């Protein structure tokens, strides 16, 4: 265990990257997810179809495959991304697909009467969506969103394959140095756990704040 404490700064640097990757990809994932969810609900048939196709592909293939394709595969087509950029893109696209389903379900769960009431006050469909439906849907979406959030935190470990020095990679580097497996893996296990607990706590606070409005 002494080994882990000696190398804590090195590991913390990795944990920083892990958090950064999680936050950035969740942020973009939220935007993608919202757009895709609305596209699937309100879009015309071809747009709907494209959105469905996207969700199907992303949810139907391993994230590791997506990461490797974006980083190594695109080079053959003349697109050379930096490893961090590639990681952001892959994780955002992935989170977006999962979140779009969360939002779609949440939007659908808002009673139809709400929308009709909004229309009757003379709101445009867009206004009704923004002012009436989305705020209510947001509350419903928080728990499953938290799931995706925390899932994403752990999924970031996969980008170690494209040379991003996040938490897992830093641990692997140390293992390669000391040939000691267990302390490092247990150490980063605890670090991941602390981080996801922290995230869960933030989400809980967020949920409570949203509930206050009613």
């Amino acid at each position, binding site marked *: 265990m002494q080994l882990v404490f000696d190398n804590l700064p090195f590991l913390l640097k990795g944990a920083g990257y892990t958090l950064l990757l999680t936050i950035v990809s969740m942020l973009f994932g939220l935007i993608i997810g919202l757009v895709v969810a609305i596209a699937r609900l309100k879009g015309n048939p071809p747009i709907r179809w494209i959105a469905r196709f996207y969700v199907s592909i992303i949810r139907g293939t391993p994230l590791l495959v997506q990461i490797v394709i974006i980083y190594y595969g695109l080079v053959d087509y003349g697109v*050379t991304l930096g490893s961090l950029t590639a990681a952001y893109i892959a994780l955002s696209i992935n989170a977006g697909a999962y979140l779009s389903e969360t939002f779609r379900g949440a939007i659908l769960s808002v009673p139809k009467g709400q929308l009709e009431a909004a229309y009757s006050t003379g709101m445009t469909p867009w206004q009704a969506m923004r002012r009436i439906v989305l705020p209510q849907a947001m509350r419903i979406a928080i728990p499953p969103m938290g799931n995706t959030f925390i899932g994403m935190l752990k999924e970031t470990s996969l980008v170690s394959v494209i040379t991003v020095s996040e938490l897992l990679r830093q641990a692997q580097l140390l293992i390669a140095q000391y040939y000691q497996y267990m302390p490092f893996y*247990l150490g980063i296990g605890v670090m991941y756990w602390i981080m996801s607990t922290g995230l869960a706590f933030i989400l809980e606070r967020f949920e409570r704040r949203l509930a206050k409005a009613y």
Partner: protein
Amino acid sequence: MIKRKFTMVTITALAVFGLVLSACGGKSDSGTTAANELEQIKKAGVIKVGTMGTYPPYTFLNDKKEVDGFDPDIAKEIAKRLGVTAEFTTQDFSGLIPSLQAEKFDIVISQVTITDERKKQIDFTDSYITNNVKIIVNTKNTDITKLEDFKGKTIGVGLGTNDETYLRTEVLPKVGDFTIKTYDDVITSLKDLDAGRIDATINNLYALKPIVDENGFQIKAVGEPIKSDMAGVALRKDNAELRDAMNKALADMKADGTYDTLFQKWFNETPAK
């Protein structure tokens, strides 16, 4: 009351967790095997071999998807001389030595360079090959010809390899700061070199030739060899019988010309005496 109970449970859980953690700090001491391993291997009729499988021509999967290359051939030859068959498992290089120690296989043959650092953890046979390591750059690159030119650049290297240790502990302090990117196999590091995501890597030419031929990467070796590495078969410590038997097999191989034949087969040249 409920609350207090909950706190107790939490404290207990944490205490248990802490115990588990602290137990891992000590070095596990399972080095003393009951019967000696050579006998166990002979009894089983199989020697379990770990190798990378992504490092042609040393170790790779051939068209039939079997583990093939110079290293597996050496391992098969050793196995034959011990009167057993070799059974291969492929894994990322960085996991090979830990897996060996976890007794997932009996030996590792994967261009494992013999270093003092590693000797503290594992044991080696005599070396079965010496490789010259050179600096490899993109063909378009003109400003890197020697180690000193690494300053401020991004250098790729295999994770857990001897080259990585060498870059970190010897080149970095000498040359000044540069970024090290680590890869799980040689192919991806060369792909990134070809794509221009790293400025240079270090490796030996035998290893590169087949990959470059296959993929048409635009890369070249520059300058003088920066070091030469001797690779041996890795095994767990305190297995003198197994080590000696393998050393004898290697020595016999070299004496009766089998080694030269294998070397010729994979590298199209005779081994430097």
